[in-house]
Structures are given as C-alpha cells and as structure tokens.
C-alpha cells in the first residue's frame, strides 16, 4: 500500500537522500535516455570542510539559479523542474567539489549546462506572458508586475537569438554579475573566448533592443 499525500503546493517530494545513484540521475523527460550530460569536470579532491550543507546551499543559491535559468531560456512553466534538476546535480557532485572555483561559479556552470541541454532538446516553449503575475503584490502593484513581466518577455525574446555559448556568457556577466574570469570558469572556455562571446552577444542584444523599440514605436 502506498500512500500518496497531496502536498502543498506541488505534488511530490523527491527523496534524494536515500536514492541510489542510478536513481539520482536527473530526470530529463525531454531528452532521450541514452544522452549523456556534459557536466563540469569534477574537481580533483574532496574538501568537505569547505562545502556547506545542501540546505544552506539551496537557500543561498536557489533564487539566483532560478533567475539565471529563466534568462537562459527556461520558460516559467518549467523553471521549477529544471531548477530541481540543477540541485540534484549539485547534490550528486558536491562531494567532488574542491573549491578551485567558488561554489557560486560552480553552481552557475551546472545551471548553464542544464539550461543548454534543455534548449537543445527542442522542447516546445510554452509562452506564459499573458498569465497573471505569480504573486500580484497588491492592487497597486499589479501594473508594475505586468510591466516587469512584459519587459522580461521582451528581453528573453532577444536573448533567444543568441546561441547557447553566447547566451551563457552574456547572462552570467550582465545579469548574474560574475567576473569574466568566473564566467570563463563556469562555461569552461578560455578567458579570451569568453570576452569574444560577450562582445558578440552584446552586438546581437543591442540590435534586438533596437528592433523591439522600432516595433513598439511603429
């Protein structure tokens, strides 16, 4: 007999801690099961002293992982699932983290790769722009919330024009405010390549903003 409780506000609780490793492989419903995932090269040694407990990591980093995933092209409807997947990977790999990069950089790297896998899977993007704001603050704030939502949708449409590599560099530098050295570390490319990608991404984004402006003025 299995009791499946209704859990607020979402349905299930994942039991990470006791799942064997094969179970802990993140669920990727949008990928064929054989596809291997590119994850950051595991650091060389374990350094448990420097690794905070997962709960603390979650609390400190989840909001930023969430935001980065949204700007990396994960639609609102899927961001919770993909965010969950990032932390499953973090959990699995945490024992190998030695602190060569900061934990933050390392987690952003996992986030960028997970988002990239998602985007490459070609899963149909469901637009949710017209949805009500997730948590309308109060009546006076609704207009602001709607305007924010529209601005984010415009930004994301522009970012959609970037390829994965450029998008990751742009988002991690311009939105998440990593240093370029950290960006290069997170995405796993030479620093000079990261600079090139940033400059190329900026040109695409600036052109996109001009087009969006022209459209709205037309």
């Amino acid at each position, binding site marked *: 007999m299995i009791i499946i409780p209704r859990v607020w506000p979402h349905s299930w609780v994942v039991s990470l*801690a006791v799942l064997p490793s094969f179970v802990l492989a993140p669920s990727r419903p949008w990928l064929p099961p054989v596809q291997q995932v590119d994850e950051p090269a595991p650091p060389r040694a374990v350094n448990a002293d420097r690794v905070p407990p997962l709960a603390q990591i979650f609390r400190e980093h989840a909001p930023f992982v*969430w935001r980065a995933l949204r700007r990396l092209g994960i639609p609102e409807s899927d961001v919770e699932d993909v965010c969950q997947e990032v932390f499953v990977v973090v959990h699995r790999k945490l024992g190998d983290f030695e602190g060569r990069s900061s934990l933050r950089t390392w987690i952003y790297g996992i986030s960028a790769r997970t988002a990239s896998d998602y985007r490459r899977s070609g899963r149909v993007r469901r637009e949710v722009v017209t949805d009500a704001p997730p948590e309308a603050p*109060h009546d006076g704030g609704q207009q602001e919330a709607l305007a924010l939502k529209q601005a984010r949708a415009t930004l994301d449409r522009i970012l959609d024009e970037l390829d994965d590599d450029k998008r990751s560099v742009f988002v991690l530098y311009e939105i998440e*405010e990593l240093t370029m050295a950290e960006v290069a570390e997170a995405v796993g490319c030479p620093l000079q390549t990261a600079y090139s990608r940033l400059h190329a991404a900026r040109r695409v984004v600036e052109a996109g903003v001009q087009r969006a402006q022209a459209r709205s003025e037309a």
Partner: protein
Amino acid sequence: MSGGGQVDPPRLLDEGAAAGELRSLLRAGKSEVPNAAQMLALAAKLGAIGGLGGAGAGGAGGAGGVGAGGVGAVGGAVKGGLAMKVIAALAVIGVASGGVAIAVKRSGGMDAAPVGIVAVSTASAAPSASAASSASAAPSARIAPSARASAAPSARASAGAAGVRPVESEEAEVKLVARAQDALRARPDEALALCSDHAKRFPSGMLVQEREVIAIEALVKTGRKDEARARANRFKARFPGSTHTRRIETILGT
C-alpha cells in the same frame, strides 16, 4: 578579477554603459527571483525542507520523517542493512511515481499491515559529515512514533541521531506556513495568527524568512502599515541581503 591583463568591461547594467531601454530590460530580467511560495514549492520538491508525509492526507496517521541529516547517516543505515529494504523500496517507489517520498513500510514481509510511513528529506543531504551539524538540518534519522512502536527493526536502524526534534516538526512547519500563505489573500487576520503560531513553535525553523514575508504582507492587508514597516525593518536587520528584501519593499510600496 580578470586575468590576462584585460579589464572586465563595464556591465550594461552600470550607469551610462548602455541605452536606457536595454538597461531597463536587464533590470527587469535581474529582478526575477522566486517568491516565497515558489521557493517553498521548490524546496518541497527537493525534499529540502522535509518529508511531507500525511500533509493533506487525513487518516494517513503516523507520518514521520527520516530526515537525512547527511548522507553519512542514511548511508550508514543503508550499509547497516537493517533499513535497506525499506529504503530501497522507498527509492524505487519514489522513482516509479515520479519522486514520491512517501511509502508505507511493512515489517517482516508477511505482515501486510502498514506500520508506518516514512518520509524522506534531504534537508542537509550534503555528502559530508558536516552536513549533520547544520542549524537547519533535519535530524539525522527519524521515524514516526507509530512506526517506532510497530516496526522496531527499521526504526532502530533509522533512528540513529540524538537530539531529534519532534517527529512532525518539518512537516508541521511546512503545513503551517503553507496555510498562512493560503490564508493571506482572503483572510489576512488568519494568516497573521498562523504566523504568530509559527513564530512560537518554530523560532528557528527553516521557513522563518518566508513566514516574516507573509506576516508583513498580512499586516499591510489589515491596514497596520506602521507595524508592517517596523517588522520589515527587523527583518532587514536580522536577514541582511535576503532575497526577500525586494519583495518586502514591494509589499510596503516603497
């Protein structure tokens, strides 16, 4: 910090570095962090704030939690073999049903009567022993009293840690904050009362920040804006740099 002698260019968000329109789009993009309810949902999904066995499942009874106070604790139980079958069954069931962390344990194998519900959490499931010492960590291993009474072998195997909080604590905490969140829109007075209840029962719970955000919003909704502001100031002093600060400012209309 930029290697190769190259200096990082000014960010587009910096003053004057980009056209106003682009900056405002980037600011909008940067301001999107999950709200308290979304964080709660995500944490629940990850099991990071405890098993929710029995939440909303009236009559399930005996819902408890095996809070994984670190992989060491649970791993030990698994290696010890005593709880192996239960935990393996949990894992399989968890997968088969898309991540359900609740399963009914049977003692012996011939005894068909469910003897308890084990909920699994990863509150601090970092694969390091230090995880168990986290303030917000779940107790290392817990089993519901009903399970303890009738499923002794498994319970013994899982109940390794000392200083265990009451069995229902995390589950109850999540439920309580969830009820407060639900009440907020239509019944702010009730939400406020639930927040007070939470403050008494879980003074250092995992959802203290979320509870405070709810309480501040409830105060605004009941017209007690000064109290809301004072409470917000206390929040900012207690949790500097919290991701909820912006939300609180929005609530206060500042």
